[in-house]
């Protein structure tokens, strides 16, 4: 494996970012003043127990949610300044998201699911076919184009979801518990694929997981969250015998 090259593209910077919810009379501080920076091409693992605010933070970086306070900057551009339409464009072109529950459209075939972001990006029909095939080739599923998600195993479905996240060649890959619904062996395969995207394509990867053991072999940095706050930000040097990994 080769070391990841850091780039200007795909940088993320959060500044005192907060996401508070009101529930009756109490305020839930899902994300509470988190600041950190990610360089382009880094592989970051967001670790923490359930309810620590990992997924909420990921949603804010993905542009799916807006912060109550603070700011997220991607490649120097503040997401808070973007309109709803611009935020949609940001999600379409700059980030790819992989979910724990795969979130494939069950009525569509594998190829159609992967093609969906290309339709939204108004890519020419002829070019779409090639890009769908390339993305599915990368995850080793080019033989299952016409299958529906219900006909695939959990691991295969997550590969399709990964191919869908990659098809628009985004600079950032956001993975929210991508192995949570998979057995450990399949989970490792998916993690290898994500690591491959980081190394070969130079994508910035933000991995949300509660399993430290899953993150450590791949991530270059570990961010620990608890009660919506960032409690530790540690580099994760490569272990002995894993030369070339990490930064």
């Amino acid at each position, binding site marked *: 494996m080769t070391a990841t090259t850091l780039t200007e593209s795909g940088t993320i910077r959060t500044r005192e970012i907060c996401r508070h919810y009101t529930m009756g009379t109490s305020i839930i501080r899902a994300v509470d003043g988190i600041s950190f920076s990610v360089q382009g091409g880094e592989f970051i693992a967001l670790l923490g127990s359930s309810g620590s605010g990992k997924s909420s933070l990921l949603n804010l970086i*993905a542009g*799916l949610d807006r912060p109550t306070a603070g700011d997220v900057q991607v490649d120097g551009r503040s997401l808070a300044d973007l309109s709803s339409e611009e935020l*949609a464009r940001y*999600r*379409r072109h700059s980030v790819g998201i992989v979910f724990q529950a795969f*979130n494939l459209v069950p009525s569509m075939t594998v190829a159609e699911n992967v093609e*969906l972001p290309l339709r*939204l990006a*108004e890519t020419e029909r002829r070019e779409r076919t090639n890009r769908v095939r390339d993305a599915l080739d990368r995850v080793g599923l080019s033989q299952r184009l016409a299958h529906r998600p219900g006909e695939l195993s959990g691991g295969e479905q997550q590969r399709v979801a990964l191919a869908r996240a990659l098809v*628009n060649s985004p600079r950032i890959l956001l993975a929210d518990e991508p192995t949570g619904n998979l057995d450990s062996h399949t989970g490792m395969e998916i993690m290898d694929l994500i690591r491959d995207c980081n190394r070969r394509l130079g994508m910035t990867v933000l991995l949300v997981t509660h399993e430290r053991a899953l993150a450590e072999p791949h991530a270059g940095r570990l961010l620990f969250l608890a009660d919506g706050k960032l409690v530790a930000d540690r580099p994760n040097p490569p272990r002995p015998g894993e030369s070339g990994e990490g930064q």
Partner: protein
Amino acid sequence: MKTPDLLELAARNLRESVLRNSLTTLGIGVGVASLVAMLSLGVGLQQLATRRLERTGLFDTVMVTRRDFGGFAARGRSAAAADNSRTLDENARREISSLPGVLEAVPDLRMMTQMRFDDKPHRAMVAAIPMSARDREAFENIQGSFFSSSSAAEAIVQKRFAEELLGRAPGMDETSNPGGPSPTLQPLLGKELVMYYAERVPAANLPNGKPGIPGTSSTPSRPSKATTAPAPANGTEAGADTMLSAFSVVPHTRSLRMVGIVADDPDTLRGLGRARVFIPLDFAQGLQIILPSDLRDGGGISDRSYTQLSVRVRNSRDVPRVEDSIHRMGFSAFSVLDASRNLQRFFTVLDLFLGIFGSLALAVASLGIVNTLVMAILERRREIGILKALGASDSDVKKLFFAEAGAMGIVGGMLGVTMGWMIGKVINAATNIYLHRQNLPSETFWSVPWWLVLGALGFSLAVSLVSGLYPAARAAKLDPVKALRYE
């Protein structure tokens, strides 16, 4: 998202819940069908009424007289009007015929004369009619046939006159076919009717004693009233000019073959002046029959004038414009268009009410669209979340729901127009079966014009899109984070 992709996704979504969407679409179809059936009935009735009225010749005809003519149009006019009065002659007729929108300008040739049939004399008003009168309502149920040509020596007789010729009491045959011709008058067809008439001959022709009209014969058997009539009708002294325009009256007879029997005079504007015998116009003009206007206006054979012209226009909408132009030419013009306008107003109101009743079903169907799409939002909540996570904007989601509503509207509209057309056809057929049993002629009560088809499709699409407004807005506003959490 590009429109083809949007439509493809919309079609896919509609196929996913095919039964529910089909039922909603069928609901729209029924709504549109009721609208189309109601309006096509209204349009059909209006067309039927207009057709019948147009065939009476009342609404597309302008009556033209001289300004100083003491008829209904100019009664009580001042002497000033008489001063600028033009003569209604052949030049005027040609000028009026060439006005835009005018089909023909036909001189009113009618005279009271004597007829002989079976050696018995009968008095009758004879009217000359153009070949275009064939389409008039009065000739719709003609017994026998219309004139073979405009110059044929043929006659069509009115039913009462036919009864008189056969020596029957009037109305004897009415039980079999009220108002229409009777089969018992059939023997008259093909028989000859002799018409007595007075020909106007220019004074210069008199010494030869030849009127110069082929096929006519003077009547030596009758006491000759061939009075030379140097008739300077305007009362001026007989000078050289007046001698040139003088004419004489020569009595003649002419045999006419009876080819048809009709119930009424097609010119229903007339009261007591209704004709009982009709002859072709060109034939009548060739006879040079003397008319009352000849005695009034004087003039030679070359510049004879007419009492009245019937001007037929192409469309009743053109009547006011044509009337205006004729007024400007210096003649009096009269039409009964106002009655037609009232009729149009009545049918507009009728169509409006029928349209409102027809739209009620469509309004109910539109609630079905709202219901279906709101259900679709609940079912596809997660899918909408996925689309948004992948980069679909609020407007993309909104357009997708609009496309689905629009597709249901268009398909429902097409279905509805087809059903409405079929309903109309069935109603029309059933009504005609009933009419046929009542010995009444078939009619078309129903019409689906192109504007109604396109209007119904457009209306259906518009109603569907309006129905899609709320669901589309609701789907677009969906929070992707919550939508993705939805199980």
